[in-house]
């Protein structure tokens, strides 16, 4: 049973557009939601994270929108660049858990 779901396996946008990556989760006890970015040949790396007490977290061109009632969140990448082409993983955890649960990932391609 997948606790964290990413609806799109892949997404292609043009340079300069806003890419929107979606994620949903099952467990109401989750309260920490990071997004990880992975380039080919590398391990995933933390990009941005939000806690469930907030509904928005912004860091430069990257913004997380969080909807606790609907148990979903999205990562918006404004002014997408070809260098943003990577796989993005949504993850979740909570104070009662010792681990992060990861979604299946969305491969983003930004076309110049």
């Amino acid at each position, binding site marked *: 049973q997948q606790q964290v779901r*990413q609806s799109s*396996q892949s997404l292609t946008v043009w340079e300069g557009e806003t890419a929107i990556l979606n994620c949903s989760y099952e467990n109401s006890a989750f309260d*920490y939601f*990071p997004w990880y970015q992975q380039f080919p*040949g*590398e*391990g*995933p*790396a*933390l990009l941005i*994270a939000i806690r469930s007490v907030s509904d928005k977290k912004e860091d430069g061109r990257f913004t997380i929108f969080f909807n606790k009632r609907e148990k979903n969140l999205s990562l918006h990448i404004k002014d997408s660049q070809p260098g943003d082409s990577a796989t993005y*993983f949504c993850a979740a*955890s909570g104070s009662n*858990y*010792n*681990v*992060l*649960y*990861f*979604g*299946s*990932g969305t491969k983003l391609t930004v076309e110049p």
Partner: protein
Amino acid sequence: EAAVTQSPRNKVTVTGGNVTLSCRQTNSHNYMYWYRQDTGHGLRLIHYSYGAGNLQIGDVPDGYKATRTTQEDFFLLLELASPSQTSLYFCASSPDREEVFFGKGTRLTVV
């Protein structure tokens, strides 16, 4: 910057073979993890540990053993490798169960 080093980076073995994947972290993190990454499944947790001598079972433990010999070293053992274990394996460490630092991965092929 947290450093997690995996070895080997690539490994080919035969069905029924014995394989050990190694991981070392140099940041004195308490938590260490082994994940496998497969297309369509994302990152799935195999085993994890929160200190030397400790071992916890993850979501996909069948066919895998793990051992945490020191604070720094975490090993993943496949004693009877099968083709279904062909995958990209990541080791990771974390100070606090939240920000997780990954190694570069080991690509294992079981033929």
